[in-house]
């Protein structure tokens, strides 16, 4: 899968490269444009940015070659934008160079210079581009009449050119550069130097064979210098250049040479001939939008036709104005194109800035997130610690509460005992002082009455009187026993347990048996344990009362170890299935309490076989 994808991509690239090669064969022809359009479309759909850059640059070059500078500029800018999106900005130096050339052609020299410098900065190792950039910078400086500086750059270009000897066009390029330098001298009016310079550096015969255009340029330069030196041999040279230019229909040279010839005839005072050449030149320049030259020609025409000087000066002014307008409009247009691409670049920058910001934010958020996580973790640890402490405190409090409850129960029990004792005492007193006293009184009165009637000797009566006394004694014993047993039901744990039984016995048919081993010293057992045991018993007895349907319940409490108590609660009720998970809350509560006491809990039960709960509690 991966491989097919890779190979597909490679195939696309190969196709694109083949197409580019094919296109280059038709360089700057219509076919070149068409092929590059295809490459562009394919690149767009395949997201092949490199291919797209190639295609756009080539299309730009095609328009540039057609003098369609707007369109060319548009495509170069697009290519530039695409290149800037990619890592390493491929081919950016070439694109800058083309743009700089284009700007130079538009006579926007300062922009051309700036762009060429940009190209230079990006041209690492690309000698052709470096050379071209030097040349463009020099040309721009030349255009800005900065001749000395332009000379420096032309020379730099020449030096660079030495590294391009392998290039097919090496000679032509070299000649071209010499020609540019010569033109600087020409501008500086060093006409003799121009001729000598070119004679030394340019092999005219050789260049004539390889590149007629360059040859014609050089000859033109020499001829013009000769013209300025009043050397009439210049005319021959001009005629040769004119012939060449006409034959290959190279407009700029045609215009230039005809202008020069016009100038020549002006100097020779042959205004008719001068006018003819200049008019030709003017027409050509006008037709091909070479306005700069047209202006020059119009000025010359003014001189050649003093009668028509107003006409030509008007045209000059109009053209100059419109030229300035066009120039301004073009610059505006370029600026607009630049702005559009800039805007996109800006957007890209904004996006990348936003990305940076986002990255920063992500960092900040991550750091904050980690910090807050840490804080939360610490907080939780702290909280759990606190919770543990609180749990411990709660347990302590619960124990205290348990003991307090037990104490309360004991107190209550004691109060009840005291109440009971008081009641017993009251009954005892009632018997002792009341009933017994009344009986005594009855006995005394009866004795006295019988005595008065002389019946006292009667055995029946005396025996009955003695009998009453016996009853009195019996009552006295009962009363005594009652009061002497006042403390037999002491307030203690067993008392409280018995109270539990009593409460249930009061409203049910259950009979309780309590067997407590004498060996258990309840005073040694912590009140907290006792209250838990009490609750367990309460729970167990409630369960028995509610569900067991038992008649007899037996509770035994005995000592198994010196510090372990064993409690067995058994009943003869209906029992239950201990395997059922749905043990009630009651049993869960009992288990929880036993766990709290570190004890053991065992419950045995079968249906209709009763239930036995066995507890072992250490103390």
């Amino acid at each position, binding site marked *: 899968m991966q491989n097919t994808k890779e190979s597909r991509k490679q195939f696309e690239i190969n196709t694109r490269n083949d197409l580019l090669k094919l296109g280059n064969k038709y360089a700057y022809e219509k076919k070149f444009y068409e092929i590059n359009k295809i490459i562009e479309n394919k690149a767009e759909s395949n997201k092949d940015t490199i291919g797209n850059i190639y295609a756009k640059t080539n299309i730009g070059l095609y328009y540039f070659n057609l003098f369609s500078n707007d369109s060319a500029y548009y495509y170069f800018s697009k290519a530039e934008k695409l290149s800037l999106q990619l890592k390493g900005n491929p081919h950016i130096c070439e694109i800058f160079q083309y743009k700089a050339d284009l700007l130079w052609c538009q006579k926007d020299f300062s922009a051309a210079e700036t762009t060429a410098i940009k190209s230079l900065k990006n041209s690492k190792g690309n000698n052709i581009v470096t050379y071209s950039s030097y040349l463009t910078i020099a040309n721009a400086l030349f255009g800005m009449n900065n001749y000395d500086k332009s000379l420096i750059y032309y020379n730099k270009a020449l030096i660079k050119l030495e590294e391009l000897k392998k290039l097919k066009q090496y000679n032509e390029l070299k000649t071209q550069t010499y020609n540019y330098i010569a033109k600087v001298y020409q501008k500086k009016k060093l006409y003799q130097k121009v001729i000598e310079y070119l004679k030394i550096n340019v092999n005219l015969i050789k260049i004539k064979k390889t590149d007629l255009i360059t040859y014609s340029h050089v000859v033109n330069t020499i001829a013009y210098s000769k013209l300025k030196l009043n050397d009439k041999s210049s005319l021959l040279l001009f005629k040769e250049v004119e012939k060449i230019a006409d034959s290959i229909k190279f407009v700029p040279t045609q215009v230039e040479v005809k202008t020069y010839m016009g100038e020549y005839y002006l100097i020779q005072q042959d205004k008719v001939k001068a006018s003819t050449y200049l008019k030709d030149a003017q027409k050509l320049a006008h037709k091909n939008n070479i306005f700069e030259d047209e202006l020059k020609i119009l000025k010359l025409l003014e001189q050649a036709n003093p009668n028509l000087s107003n006409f030509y000066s008007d045209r000059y002014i109009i053209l100059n104005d419109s030229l300035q307008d066009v120039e301004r409009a073009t610059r505006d247009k370029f600026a607009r194109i630049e702005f559009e691409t800039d805007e996109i670049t800006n957007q890209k920058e904004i996006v990348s800035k936003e990305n940076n910001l986002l990255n920063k934010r992500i960092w900040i958020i991550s750091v904050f997130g980690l910090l807050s996580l840490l804080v939360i973790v610490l907080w939780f640890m702290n909280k759990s610690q606190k919770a543990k402490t609180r749990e411990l405190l709660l347990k302590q409090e619960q124990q205290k509460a348990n003991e307090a409850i037990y104490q309360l129960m004991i107190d209550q029990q004691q109060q009840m005992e*005291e109440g009971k004792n008081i009641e017993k005492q009251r009954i005892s007193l009632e018997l002792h002082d009341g009933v017994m006293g009344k009986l005594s009184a009855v006995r*005394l009165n009866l004795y006295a009455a019988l*005595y008065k009637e002389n019946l006292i000797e009667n055995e029946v009566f005396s025996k009955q009187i003695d009998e009453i006394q016996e009853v009195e004694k019996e009552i006295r014993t009962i009363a005594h026993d009652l009061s002497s047993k006042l403390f037999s039901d002491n307030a203690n744990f067993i008392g409280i347990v018995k109270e539990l039984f009593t409460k249930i016995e009061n409203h049910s048919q259950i009979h309780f048996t309590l067997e407590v081993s004498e060996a258990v010293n309840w005073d040694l057992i912590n009140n907290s344990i006792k209250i838990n045991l009490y609750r367990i018993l309460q729970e167990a007895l409630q369960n028995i009362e509610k569900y067991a349907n038992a008649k007899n319940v037996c509770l035994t409490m005995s000592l198994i170890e010196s510090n372990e108590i064993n409690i067995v609660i058994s009943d003869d009720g209906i029992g239950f299935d201990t395997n059922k998970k749905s043990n009630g809350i009651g049993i869960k509560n009992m288990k929880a309490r036993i766990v709290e006491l570190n004890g053991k809990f065992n419950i045995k039960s079968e249906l209709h076989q009763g239930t036995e709960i066995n507890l072992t509690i250490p103390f």
Partner: protein
Amino acid sequence: MIVRILMIDDHPGMIEGYKAMLSLNKEQHNIETISAFNCEEAYNIIINPANSSAFDLVFLDYSIPEFLEQKIYNGEDLGVLIRKHLPNAKIIMLTAHFDAIRLYNVVKKIQPNGLLVKSDYKPPHLLDAFEKVLAGETYYTPIVLEKVKEPLFTKGFLDTLDREIIVLLAEGFQIKTIATKMNVSEDTIKKRKSKIKDLLGIEKGSDEDILKECRALGLL
């Protein structure tokens, strides 16, 4: 001769019985009686200065309704008052109690001229006691004579306060109540209790143990 008797008993029937019995006296004494049925009535008669020599004899029951206002709880307390306000009157204490402590306390405090335990004597013994006391003798029923010999008391080991505490404990009162009744602090009661325990040879134990031991010794 006329014998004036103050009869203090909460049972009117009992007083009637005493009267009926005394009417049978062999010396043919005329018996004049005034009755009081509780501590308050008795107190008012006793402390009335007009009565200071109004009685030859007082029949005094031990358990009668108390007069809280004056902290008079029983016949024993009344006996003390009688000895103070009615110096000429002789006292015959008739009680249903037969425990050593109470009997000993009564003997110690008021030295009654007669001391009879109800249900322990037969009616003729009442007449014997009456005549003997009138004659200036003392008449104690045999059980009393036996009980008051208790060496713990006679040799002064358990003093009056100790004995009272034991009595009140036996009546089922808590320390707080006992302290209030005896008009002493709770601490005093606690100290006394530990002294009683030491005397009775109880190392550690509750109030119940004190009472158990007392019963075993026949003190209660």
